[in-house]
């Protein structure tokens, strides 16, 4: 059986005055139905562009996208409209992603109007149900976004995304703008919705503890490339790529007794414009050698654990399963 969603060698380049910006470069992965794929990386690594390209909010430059076994890389307008019912997005900033001139009910109703085929009463009934699902009080029906706090606004964004009963949602940093106590409420809501409706998520975030909490599998991106992909537990217990290791060690842990050993990276993310072939992390990597300047391939090191680093075996000899190394 084919995967629920599959992308193969997906590329998205932007033409800029200074050259071609490789925002997403040769990314491939599969997601099974009802699971969550976390995508982590620092700002500018292409994680949002990846989500938007899959949804056709941006046109891909190369590669293929399969949705429920069907090639949807190039689709006409009619087909795109149908697809949009199945694929939705929740945006990062609940302050700018809601029209300030529309009331809560109008915002949630808009997708229903666009789809058509419902009477006004049916739509009002549906809006009521959706508001209830995401935990918005009925008295807020006629409120405007500016009257509400970030958590409630994000609930509106979720209700709007759910309106057409999609099967797949790209969540682009949905909790980054929220306070921790509200963040936890929204994460729980999203998990409940996934269970009830069998939703499939791509969860884009820079917050590693959030991504560990919500994801089944995690992709780590660096400068447009996928550097490591593994089941959530495996990635955190046994990170293999030098960048993933540095990223994980950089998270401050709320524990006063266990001060951990940091791997401090030198320098900053390099420019994604006209990058040289080879590992893009090499410039900051303490293990980099001449061979890292050649293009790297994603390789399955442990079952389900893919790493794009030619030195991975040498660096992690003890952590790789015995069967694999023989």
């Amino acid at each position, binding site marked *: 059986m084919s995967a629920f969603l599959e992308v193969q060698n997906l590329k998205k380049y932007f033409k800029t005055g200074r050259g071609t910006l490789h925002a997403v470069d040769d990314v491939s992965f599969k997601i099974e139905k009802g699971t969550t794929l976390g995508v982590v990386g620092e700002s500018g690594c292409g994680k949002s562009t990846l989500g938007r390209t899959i949804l056709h909010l941006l046109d891909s430059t190369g590669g293929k996208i399969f949705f429920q076994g069907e090639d949807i890389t190039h689709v006409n307008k009619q087909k795109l409209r149908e697809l949009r019912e199945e694929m939705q997005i929740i945006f990062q900033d609940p302050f700018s992603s809601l029209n300030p001139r529309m009331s809560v009910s109008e915002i949630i109703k808009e997708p229903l109007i666009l789809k058509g085929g419902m009477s006004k009463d049916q739509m009002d009934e549906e809006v009521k149900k959706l508001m209830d699902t995401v935990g918005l009080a009925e008295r807020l029906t006629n409120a405007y976004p500016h009257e509400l706090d970030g958590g409630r606004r994000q609930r509106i964004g979720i209700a709007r995304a759910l309106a057409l009963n999609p099967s797949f949602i790209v969540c682009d940093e949905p909790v980054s703008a929220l306070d921790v106590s509200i963040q*936890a409420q929204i*994460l729980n809501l999203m998990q409940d919705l996934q269970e009830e409706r069998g939703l499939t998520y791509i969860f884009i975030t820079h917050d590693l503890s959030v991504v560990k909490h919500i994801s089944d599998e995690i992709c780590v991106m660096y400068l447009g490339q996928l550097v490591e992909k593994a089941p959530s537990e495996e990635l955190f217990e046994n990170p293999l790529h030098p960048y993933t290791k540095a990223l994980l060690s950089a998270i*401050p842990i709320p524990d006063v007794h266990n001060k951990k050993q940091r791997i401090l990276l030198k320098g900053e993310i390099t420019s994604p414009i006209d990058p040289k072939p080879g590992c893009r992390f090499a410039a900051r990597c303490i293990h980099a050698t001449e061979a890292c300047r050649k293009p790297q391939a994603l390789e399955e090191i442990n079952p389900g654990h893919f790493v794009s680093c030619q030195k991975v075996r040498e660096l992690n000899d003890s952590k790789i399963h015995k069967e694999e190394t023989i």
Partner: protein
Amino acid sequence: MSETKQTDNLVSVRDLVVEFTTDGSVVHAVNGVSFDINKGETLGLVGETGAGKTTIAKAILGILPDPPAKVRNGSITFEGQDLLSLPEKEMRKVRGKRISMIFQDPMTALNPIFTVGDQIAEAILLHEKMSKAESEKRAVDMLELVGIPGERCKEYPHQFSGGMKQRVVIAMALACNPELLLADEPTTALDVTIQAQVLEMMANLKEKLNTSVLMITHDLGIVAEMCDKVAVIYAGEIVEIGLAEDIFDRATHPYTKGLFGSLPSLKSHEKRLHPITGMVPDPTNLPEGCKFSPRCKYADEGCRCQAIPLHDLGNGHLVRCRKEGGEK
């Protein structure tokens, strides 16, 4: 923290009350906050958006916009001087020299039309008797101190990345060797690997210069890493304060516990978070009695009818809860 530092008080905030008057309503931003910071010590101020963290820092620095802000009560004593009654002319000698602030957003804290070197030199020229050339030399030294090559002092803010800009802001704040540094979410706008670099640098500088720091953050991970003492603030009140070990090991106030329960952990395999129900109260209309009581599962009538004092659990660990977190 050594015993000698305990007595070496640098700044004392007592019963600070700050209100903002808006069209007809009064926002009770800070409601009777007291704390001390000793020399060389870092106090973490933790709380959610709107809890009053930044307002406290701005009150210390005397940069609250009046109107609408008004300090209604309290005192801020800095090395024996009451900052609140200091004339503006005197305050200017303190601000930027003895107390300085790192603002949250490095993108807007720098002036886009001056080079970073000029901006750092400006702070130095205002407070130190030295020539322009000397101040520029010092600016270059400061840049190198925060890990930016000195030759970049002739560049403009837009030529720097976010992490570099935040370093420039830190260089500016440290330019006159302040005794107290107010760091308002200094790494919130940065990526984790860059955040790790900046925190490491701040810790090293603090060690070198023996600066006291008020670290404002909502990230308990940063608090664990950087702070000696922690104050948890909710709706303009300190609900719990104590040594970092006490707060992390023996969190007592239901709100503090709730904050910890809301954090997805990197260690545990728990698939469900335990958020605090409800929302932060409207600061124009705060609840009577314990301000957390509407969201607290232990609250009863007694919590709602009277103001709750801070209760001493020993070792300077204070908690504003008459039930000690539901255990009594």
